[in-house]
């Protein structure tokens, strides 16, 4: 009986709370807010906040065309694998105090798990056989190459800071990092972590492929790049994966650098004097709310704002930008973390 209960609990985790449904809603919300804010920055009214939902359900209604040149099975399966990958990844990122699994994956593994949705898209593009998709695929791979280096440096810096502070050499497990932050305040308050946080903020648009770095799916130059041959439901699934990826990357930033807020909520709830299960539920609810708000603020700052003020870069500029400017930020923070600042 316990096994069944346990299985149901995990199923609920996967499908409902931090898994599919939750990140589906928040992801779409973030995309809607992103498009609205970008529009408002261009002095125009912009689409309604629920526009991504409409887009998604309209695409579900559209007919799916599989071109002859495409490899039919891979063409249809790739989006689903991408979606499954991003859903599972969301489980490993703790919401402040609440984490579903704490001994399944650590920070470096999450770095690799972030690759799976991008690879699913690349596989889908390759399977479609269109030359536009081929060019898009090559650009997406170069973007991944560009983003990987600074992202790793940031993670190493965080691991080193938390590791030396806790005296265990280095700590890669995300839940321990969040636990540490709850005791000693958010990492962003430490001097050595500020360049790392800035670097991570600069990485978010690159990782999610949003505006200045969306050379991979530049609709003007290479007709939607990798999505050139997708229509109907598979395209909807890819758009959904993009939306959920934004939420995942942003909540990773919150977990890595703003973990201390969870403790603040805890003692806030304690201050109200509630206790027992009710307090736990309330604090969980508050934490979710704070996470969503923080995600919205972060999306506005580092995706929408950057989207409104920049023009799309060429692919080798994207690569050069990430391997010089952003890597310097991350290196500075790694060196500072290393020599005990």
């Amino acid at each position, binding site marked *: 009986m316990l096994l069944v209960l346990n299985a149901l609990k995990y199923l609920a985790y996967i499908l409902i709370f931090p898994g599919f449904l939750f990140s589906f809603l928040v992801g779409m919300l973030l995309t809607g807010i992103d498009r609205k804010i970008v529009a408002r920055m261009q002095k*125009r*009214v*912009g689409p309604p906040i629920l526009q991504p939902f409409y887009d998604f359900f309209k695409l579900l209604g559209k*007919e799916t065309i599989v071109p002859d040149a495409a490899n039919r099975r891979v063409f249809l399966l790739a989006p689903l694998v991408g979606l499954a990958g991003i859903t599972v990844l969301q489980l490993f990122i703790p919401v402040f105090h609440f984490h579903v699994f704490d001994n399944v994956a650590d920070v470096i593994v999450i770095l690799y798990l972030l690759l799976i949705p991008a690879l699913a898209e690349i596989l889908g593009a390759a399977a479609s056989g269109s030359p536009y998709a081929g060019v898009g695929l090559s650009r997406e791979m170069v973007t991944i190459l560009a983003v990987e280096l600074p992202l790793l440096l940031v993670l190493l810096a965080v691991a080193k800071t938390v590791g030396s502070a806790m005296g265990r050499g280095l700590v890669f497990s995300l839940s321990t990092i969040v636990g540490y932050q709850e005791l000693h305040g958010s990492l962003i308050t430490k001097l050595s972590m500020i360049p790392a946080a800035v670097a991570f903020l600069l990485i978010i648009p690159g990782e999610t492929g949003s505006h200045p770095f969306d050379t991979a799916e530049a609709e003007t130059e290479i*007709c*939607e790049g990798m*999505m*050139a041959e997708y*229509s109907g439901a598979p395209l909807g699934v890819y758009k959904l994966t993009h939306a959920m990826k934004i939420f995942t990357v942003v909540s990773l930033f919150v977990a890595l650098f703003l973990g201390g807020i969870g403790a603040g909520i805890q003692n806030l709830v304690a201050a109200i004097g509630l206790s027992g299960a009710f307090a736990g539920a309330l604090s969980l609810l508050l934490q979710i709310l704070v996470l969503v708000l923080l995600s919205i603020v972060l999306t506005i700052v580092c995706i929408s704002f950057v989207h409104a003020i920049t023009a799309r870069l060429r692919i080798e500029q994207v690569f050069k930008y990430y391997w010089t400017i952003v890597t310097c930020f991350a290196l500075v923070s790694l060196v500072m973390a290393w020599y005990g600042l």
Partner: protein
Amino acid sequence: MFKKLIEESTGKSPWLFHINAGSCNGCDIELVAVLTPRYDAERLGFKLAGSPRQADIVVVTGPITAQSLPRVLRTIEQVPEPRCIVTMGSCPQSGNVFRGSYSICGPLSKYVHVDVDVAGCTPKPEAVIDGLALATKILQQKRREMK
């Protein structure tokens, strides 16, 4: 699965694909002007799609020149099913001043069923928005009739 929701959102997020069949670019810049802050078609859900596979409404401008005819027909054919075809400006409807020239292949309606004609030699952006709104209703109707 949630068929009504799909129908409703088909009406709310029509994506455009613009085909220039030899136009003098008067209508092309007017179509783009519809997406500028002044008229902002995006608040109604319109968005320019990069490839016909992701389009719902196909906007054709220009008198269908002999050179562009096969390409226009092929691109329209590649748009997935609930689709509308809108001709913008007088040229695709009748060939306008170019009618009778040996290199013009006549009105688009000779080859494809045109859903909405937006007349005017460069119709005003408001007229284009009206035309597209009408096309969206027809799109929704087509979606309702689909299997």
